[in-house]
């Protein structure tokens, strides 16, 4: 390969704010946020199911807004506040969404879960008491092949209640059937 056609792979130095921490990374400028998170920052909790913007598994929050990290160039979000699943628990204490995803088995294989929980977190920040239809719409860009979404709705609803300070016991129908 002649030098002319060799792709430029020289790294640039970037600064990211990830889960409240300042992180400096030398990375190839064509890298996506997904790649930088997983491969340069070792934050493998962010997943990929397509790397084409079709499945939602790679969802992270950028300044509180859900974005598909596989379609986002890392360069675009330098300096923004990035939140991944690793930043969701507070000093080891699970976020209510994580707690109810765990409690109800809304996370079966768990591969889609980080995307779902971050998308849900953004929803609840905007709308603390979403209806089921509003949850559906907010999560319609995330695919899950395991759960049929049923337990995910229930977990989001219970987490919303908990965040509102209301009683939040799973119903018997949810855990045992009708």
């Amino acid at each position: 390969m002649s030098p002319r056609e060799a792709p430029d792979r020289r790294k640039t130095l970037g600064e990211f704010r990830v889960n409240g921490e300042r992180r400096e990374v030398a990375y190839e400028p064509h890298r996506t946020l997904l790649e930088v998170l997983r491969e340069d920052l070792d934050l493998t909790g962010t997943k990929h199911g397509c790397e084409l913007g079709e499945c939602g598994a790679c969802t992270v929050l950028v300044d509180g807004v859900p974005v598909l990290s596989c379609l986002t160039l890392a360069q675009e979000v330098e300096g923004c506040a990035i939140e991944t699943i690793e930043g969701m628990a507070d000093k080891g204490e699970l976020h209510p969404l994580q707690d109810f995803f765990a409690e109800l088995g809304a996370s079966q294989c768990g591969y889609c879960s980080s995307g779902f929980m971050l998308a849900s977190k953004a929803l609840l920040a905007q709308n603390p008491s979403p209806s089921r239809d509003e949850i559906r719409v907010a999560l319609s860009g995330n695919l899950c092949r395991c759960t049929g979404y049923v337990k995910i709705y229930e977990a989001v609803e219970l987490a919303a209640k908990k965040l509102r300070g209301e009683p939040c016991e799973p119903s018997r129908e949810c855990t045992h059937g009708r």
Partner: protein
Amino acid sequence: MGADAAGSGAPIERPEGRYLHGVPDADLKVVGKPWRKIDARARVTGQTRFADDLFAPRMAYCKLLRSTQAHARIVRIDASAAEAMEGVYAVLLGKDLPITFGILPVSQDEHTLCIDKVRFVGDPVAAVAAVDEDTAWEACRKIVVEYEALPLVTDVFTAAATDPEAPHEHRIHDYGRLGNFHRQENLEFGDLAQGFGESDLVREDFFFFEGNTHLPMEEHATLATFDPDGKLCVQSSTQTPHYLHRALAKVLAEHVPAHKIRVIACPNGGGFGGKSDPFSHEIAVAMLSIRTGRPVKVTLTREEVFYTHRGRHPVLMRSRIGVSRSGRIKALDFETHLDGGAYGSYGTASTFYTGALQCVTYHVENYWFRGARYFTNKAPCGPKRGHGTPQPRFALEVQMDKLAVELGLDPVRIRKDNLVPANSLTANWMRVGTMALGRCIDQVVAGSGFLDRWQKLPHGKGVGLACSSYLSGAGLPIYWNAMPHSGVQLKLDRSGLVTVFCGSTDIGQGSNSILAYVVGEVLGLDPQDLRIVTSDTDLTPVDLGSYSSRVTLMTGNAALQAAERARDLIAPHVADKLGVPRNRIGFAKGRVFDVSDPDQGMPFADAVQLAESKLGTIGTTGSYRPPKSPARYKGGGVGPSANYSFTAAVVEVDVDPETGIYTVPRIFVAHDIGRSINPCLVMGQVEGSVYMGLGEAMMEEMSYRSDRFGVHKIPSMLDYKSPTTMEMPELITWLVGDPDPNGPFGAKEAGQGPLLPIMPAVANAVFDAVGVRVDEVPITPEKVFEGIERARKGKEPRVGPTKTPHVDWPEARKVRTPWQGGTGLEVEREQEELAAARANGGASRERRGD
């Protein structure tokens, strides 16, 4: 492992135990409760390490070059330019790994990389290990492959018509039956002529079930590490580490012996059957690691996952059924044609599965099954959730609906009148134990108000009923052997920690947790306190894998046996210490105590120390093998199971008669689970199955361009439609059933059965709504619309196939039914056996005479 007092020699067919199905719910501390999964925290915090989350120092990245041709001879392949590239560590071609593999011993038809021909678009032909993924891709593009096109076969009619005399290149494989037939099976149970003769109504219907794929969210990935000391470790997203181990040992026989190969199944990001075969990419990275002395990782792209496939077979079916006026099934003549794709995979088993479970729900007096599997130049089909049984189940349940309408019965009555009794044998010798399908039907019918709504709703709205059954684990392993299907070892530590070792693989269904619940129940421990070590062929005893809904039942029974043996080791020493009889020792809440005076006792850790002081290191084993099946005829190995789950479902549809577009507002489902070990996890399995069934019913399909070289039309998640939150209806679920004696604590499967009734229930509901029969899956709006249009034009309002390929079937293997006095063997072999017995009897009399 240590003092395994009861470790060997005990019967392994069923753990003899005090803690089986008979224990009342109230006496159970762990089982039956909605515990969170033991690894739930890791899964919701991003700590679970899936295969692609593994990175190693000096790791190389692998990419596969895949065929661009569907059927072609490889004339020349030149990798020199790729090999010369900077950053490329090694290039592997087919000739480097000449030994074939395949999941079934009867179809070892895959090469790691194609050697002389390619059989579908996506067939791997070369593998590169390089410094990074981009370099590996570029190197792949520099490999020159010259192909010479061969005749293309993309459907079963063309495959069936392949002239057996034609030149060899018309065949995709040169094994199997003639032409492009892979298998042809013909089994006859009972007297069909008599059955049809006694029938008042005979219907013949044709059905087609299009292929679809698992679409697990996680793309397959594998990391292989070959150590300087000659040991190979392969960490992979596989559901079947044991079978992968066998395939690696076979293909790499010249490079590394079996005992130096370690396979670790990573937690799977969904499997659904799609990670159950040993795959080319797994073997390729192993070989590349041997070549380069580096860890090598491969991660498939989503497009490659579509080519890797092994999903639902497209099946064309003909069903002729004879019933009495009251709807009793007298005879069933069922024919299936499986479009297998390019390789054998599980296809031989799939073929038998399309005929295995028809008789498990409804009593069929005389049954004839013929099944053919064909090779075609498409991605290979294999096992997907329900493996080979959803297609015939769709046909049968729609046909039952048609029969009900034609006989003026209702869909509930005709099903309930035909139910197989509990504890009985079917025409094809499947042994049914507990059976609560009747209760499932009652539950969904009452819960949905079915009988008040069926045929009574306004035009455009409809309800449909369908039922199903599935096995809790295959009765036989995929390679013949007499060893257990599941093994468990327990190690008891002085700290009170119990470690459970088992080869099973958690694919999200919660199988690791099941081990903890079972052992925790028996030893009186909190399941969260146990250490579970699974799916590592170096460390854990063999479990055959996470397929055929076998894991809860088989590993559960093995764990039960191991835990009971641990109790038996500990209890006598505690009894001596307390000065009470052995049978008064109980285990609960982390203590071992006198049940008549619970204050008298000690912490579990002290009890372990006591026993260890007397016996030495404490460990036990448990094993499980399903009971022997009465189906002894050839082909009877597919279908038998320790127990069967049953499901009934009612689906509501809302069809726009102008466009055929429909929605599914609600689904009601009742599942016979025996007894739930964890009802919350069972609910999750039922919900996930219903969801996946709905995707198959409404939209999911693998489609290929037969005109353009057999290219997959839509290998992406955007174009391969699957249900999102917007399509998933409200779901109302009931868990019913009685503890089954063969299941651990009475459990049955939950992960596959509830998928099966959804497709036919949708079809039946569409008919109820607009009077259109779509005898095909998926039931797309286009097809519903076509049916409506046909009705408008006065034609038969039906969309579906009208014929099957011509097959010169081999002669039927005839088997007498249980009610004909059969023995479970073919008539021919029955006679041989009789003659042999007579000869033997004569011989032994002679000996006695001596």
